[in-house]
């Protein structure tokens, strides 16, 4: 919503208040000022009267004008097409500095002396209201040659753009905003000085017959007028340009101006369009679905009240007889109906959906006032109307409730004053209660809290003293909070291992999902309105989008890329779960003097140890079902306490190549399977632990996980606390076999072990391996 200061001043006295103060007030009462700018016309630009205008002797497109600028008559060469004798125009005299910095000097144009410049609106810093030079008229004040243009306050206006919230349809007009300022500054809202006197004697019934069928929940009032001559005065052209309201015809301009002033929805019909050559036009207001009303002629829809109007019935520029319709429909009726019936809407629907001004006579009066003042029209006597009375809303406000909601007391007299100025009808005040009817133009007010909001915004939130809340102690360690803390710990561990946290969109490209063999979200549950074609799916895992970040960094010459993310992923049924991904691409450590600038590339073992530093120890089991993202022979399930919680793998070389990546490893972890655990200490043995290594020869096809489970399930002596592989060796002499060395930690419990006892333990171990894994001692 755009307003101008001068336009507002027609409705509220703003004497002694700066435009900055107006903006501040608008902000503080809940009308957010988006921008404010002033039109500054420089000095030495004066009103000129074109006394004569002749073709330049040597240039077809130039005119030589004699212009009266009060103190003198000047000869000025002008290139505009619309310059002509008798016009009043802005003249930049010699010495004037234009808003664009150009200095006006005495000049010679094709041999003809020129003493100044006749200006266009644009050259003055105004919006272009017409092609060519600006034609001044008395709508902006008396035109005296020589008078400085900057003295015309309607030209040097201040323009304020307000970002209205959706509930404030009542402020979609100059009058509505002025009403707010009148309350904010405690000044009086002016009334329109127009008695609505219609001088014509011919009644509207001669040319228009209105009927209705059904009972649509709308109101319309129709008038008619005859145009004898009509032009749009500068003041209106200029203001409509200030508020960025284009118009197609003079009638359109007058209507637009009256709508913007009053907030009443006004439409015009060309008489010839709806009369079909008859003497009388016949309009029927017909109830249609959802309580809406359609205006029909000849069984054709001319308009749907508050929603749209057929192009066919709009008056042409040369139409002499105009039917005017002022209408109102409550936003509570029109908004659901438009949604339900999927109706096409025109720009005025924006007003009706947010609540237009229901006082139709006010809008009509403004329009007639303008027509009487600036045009020559004959207005038919009388009108034709169909009015749906609005149920008045009455609210009982308890001052005690006001106090408890705001947190401080408000005097009842102050509240009454504020509500009165806002247009509430105060029915009664007694015993700390105000009983008031809400203003008809405030569609957004229906309950007590709405009214308290009005009081709060006028008092000003900044005038409420802030107070800490007293509250009761309670345990608020929700599971979500504990989860947040646990994940934060994990995130910090990843950071300390050199990983950078990233955030990716949950959206992904379904084509890619399928390319890598994952199942996209089932079509019936898929996104209906993706924002771009390559964001039409929901990611099945985190790695799929991480690839782009790895690629971006690799293309930016990053030699070592370590990223992680914790976020939501979705299965084909669109079930959400939380996952963590850690991805590492390129060199294992930073290049430096330590590694002569040539660090080793990341490998399976070092990546796994990084991952375990983040999520704790785990066992790796050969992946049962590697995805197409994974190297089929370097991929594993991550098993913690017997439960598979994720996977770890080298990125498939074909994928790495496609994304221009060096060796890349990644781990995806089902983060919801990880839980913080409280550890219990075990007794620490007092005897010295013993390490023993055992080398066996087994078939190369035997995985370590098989050996491991053979030992765990085969009755390992209790004193063996743990074991792990420390060497794998293959050479020609071993053929298809390999040598594997395991290290065993033996912790004696009750007594120290003799060498012979240790040997017997190692023999037991060997026997298990011989029996279960076909191993032999190396």
């Amino acid at each position: 919503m755009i307003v101008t200061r001068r336009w507002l001043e027609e409705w509220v006295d703003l004497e002694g208040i700066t435009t900055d103060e107006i903006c501040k007030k608008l902000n503080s009462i809940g009308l957010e000022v988006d921008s404010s700018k002033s039109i500054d016309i420089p000095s030495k630009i004066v009103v000129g009267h074109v006394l004569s205008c002749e073709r330049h002797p040597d240039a077809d497109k130039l005119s030589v004008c004699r212009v009266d600028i009060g103190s003198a008559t000047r000869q000025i060469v002008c290139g505009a097409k619309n310059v002509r004798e008798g016009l009043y125009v802005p003249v930049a005299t010699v010495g004037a500095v234009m808003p664009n910095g150009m200095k006006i000097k005495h000049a010679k144009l094709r041999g003809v002396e020129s003493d100044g410049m006749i200006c266009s609106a644009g050259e003055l810093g105004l919006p272009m209201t017409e092609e060519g030079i600006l034609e001044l008229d008395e709508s902006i004040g008396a035109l005296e040659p020589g008078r400085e243009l900057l003295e015309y306050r309607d030209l040097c206006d201040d323009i304020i753009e307000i970002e209205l919230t959706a509930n404030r349809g009542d402020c979609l007009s100059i009058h509505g905003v002025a009403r707010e300022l009148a309350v904010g500054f405690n000044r009086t809202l002016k009334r329109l000085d127009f008695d609505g006197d219609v001088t014509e004697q011919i009644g509207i019934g001669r040319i228009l017959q209105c009927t209705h069928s059904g009972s649509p929940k709308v109101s319309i009032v129709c008038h008619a007028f005859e145009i004898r001559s009509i032009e749009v005065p500068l003041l209106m052209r200029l203001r409509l340009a200030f508020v960025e309201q284009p118009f197609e015809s003079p009638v359109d301009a007058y209507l637009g101006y009256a709508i913007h002033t009053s907030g009443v929805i006004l439409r015009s019909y060309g008489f010839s369009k709806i009369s079909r050559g008859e003497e009388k036009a016949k309009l029927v207001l017909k109830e249609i679905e959802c309580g809406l009303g359609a205006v029909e002629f000849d069984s054709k829809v001319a308009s749907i009240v508050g929603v749209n109007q057929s192009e066919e019935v709009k008056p042409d520029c040369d139409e002499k007889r105009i039917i005017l319709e002022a209408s109102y429909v409550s936003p509570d009726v029109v908004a659901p109906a438009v949604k339900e019936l999927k109706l096409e809407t025109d720009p005025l629907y924006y007003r009706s959906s947010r609540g237009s001004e229901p006082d139709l006579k006010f809008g009509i009066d403004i329009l007639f006032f303008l027509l009487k003042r600036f045009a020559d029209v004959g207005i038919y006597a009388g009108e034709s109307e169909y009015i749906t009375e609005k149920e008045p809303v009455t609210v009982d406000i308890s001052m005690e409730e006001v106090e408890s909601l705001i947190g401080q007391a408000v005097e009842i007299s102050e509240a009454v004053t504020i509500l009165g100025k806002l247009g509430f009808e105060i029915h009664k005040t007694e015993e700390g209660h105000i009983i008031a009817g809400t203003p008809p133009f405030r569609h957004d007010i229906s309950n007590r809290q709405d009214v308290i909001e009005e009081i709060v915004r006028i008092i000003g939130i900044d005038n409420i003293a802030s107070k800490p809340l007293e509250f009761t102690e309670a345990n608020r360690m929700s599971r979500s909070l504990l989860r947040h803390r646990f994940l934060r710990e994990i995130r910090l561990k990843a950071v300390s291992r050199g990983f950078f946290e990233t955030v990716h969109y949950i959206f992904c490209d379904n084509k890619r999902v399928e390319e890598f063999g994952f199942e996209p979200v089932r079509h019936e549950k898929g996104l209906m309105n993706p924002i771009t074609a390559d964001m039409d799916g929901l990611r099945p895992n985190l790695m799929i989008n991480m690839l782009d970040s790895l690629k971006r960094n690799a293309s930016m010459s990053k030699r070592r890329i370590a990223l992680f993310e914790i976020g939501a992923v979705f299965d084909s049924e669109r079930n959400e779960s939380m996952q963590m991904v850690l991805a590492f691409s390129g060199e294992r450590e930073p290049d430096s003097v330590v590694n002569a600038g040539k660090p080793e590339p990341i490998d399976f073992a070092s990546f796994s140890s990084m991952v375990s530093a983040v999520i704790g120890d785990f066992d790796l089991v050969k992946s049962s079902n590697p995805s197409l993202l994974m190297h089929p022979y370097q991929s594993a399930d991550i098993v913690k306490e017997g439960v598979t919680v994720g996977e770890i793998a080298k990125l498939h070389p074909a994928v790495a190549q496609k994304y221009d990546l060096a060796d890349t490893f990644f781990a995806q972890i089902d983060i919801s399977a990880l839980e913080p655990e409280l550890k219990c200490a075990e007794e620490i043995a007092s005897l010295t632990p013993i390490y023993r290594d055992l080398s066996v020869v087994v078939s190369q096809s035997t995985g370590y996980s098989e050996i491991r489970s053979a030992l765990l399930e085969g009755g390992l002596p209790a004193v063996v606390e743990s074991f792990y592989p420390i060497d794998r060796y293959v050479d020609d002499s071993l053929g298809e076999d390999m040598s594997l060395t395991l290290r065993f930690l033996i912790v004696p419990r009750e007594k120290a072990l003799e060498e012979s006892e240790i040997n017997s333990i190692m023999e037991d171990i060997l026997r298990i391996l011989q029996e279960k894994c076909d191993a032999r001692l190396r």
Partner: protein
Amino acid sequence: MQNSLIDRIEKSLDLDDLEAVRVSIFGKKGELAKAFARLKDASAEEKPKIAKELNALKQTLTEAYERKRAELQERQLQERLEREAIDVSLYSPRAGSGALHPVMQTMDRIIEYFTDLNFAVETGPLVEDEFHNFEALNLPDYHPARDMQDTFYFRDGKLLRTHTSPVQIRTMMKQKPPIRMISPGAVFRRDFDLTHTPQFHQVEGLMVDEKGKVSFANLKWILEDFLHTMFGDVDVRFRPSFFPFTEPSAEVDISCIFCEGKGCRVCSHTGWLEVLGCGMVDPNVFKAVGYEDVSGYAFGLGVERFAMLIHRIPDLRSLFEGDLRLLEQFR
């Protein structure tokens, strides 16, 4: 003899040399042993005197030896230390640790503030339904405010939540008042340009207690304190505004941290930066969740906006690109 022996000790060049000297003096066949051996040839009256002299000599030599040994050990240690000298400046560590994402760091700080004030943290699903995301929040489907919320819909009528407020609805439907919670998380709107990404993060807060207990003054206090904690010494301004789920509603601005309120490009020359929306919970919301005789406030903020202001990040979209050139700055 004493002087020549001391001279030999003193002239030892290193510990090996000194050891050889020690053997030659103190060893079984050393000078001292020899001298003591000659004692048995001395007369009885001379014996004690010579023995005393020899013992004194041994004492003197031992002291000289110990002194020399300490000296040589010290020198050897010094030499070793010098040999081990490195140019420490070559080893300034580079790229040691990673970093948390600036948006997530900011979210952590926000969560920390509110949990320290005894707010609970609640979370909810990203895929929501119309009831929790709109209707229970006083947003019927024709409401003009729904224009502001361009929503991602699924073919089965579900949607991606456009704010974290549905978590508040879910919590209120599950728990009895008093409620004191925040709901942090990702939200989605169908908007993609310089200043909008289809996914961003919010933290919303909700406080509900008995009727008459929670006031706008309380809301002001906590938000002012919160914004001072996050942004330091800034002015805080409340502007009345409109949200369907709160009433009275306000938008909260801080004085521009870039120009200190003088007006600059970032604040569109207004001197103020909008950072929060808030208000007293609308009675219709309480009605939707079946609460009676309660009062409460709610607020919500965009984490990306906070992160961009606090860390002076110029480009919103860069936050979702995993670009190390940005992320490494937060190490």
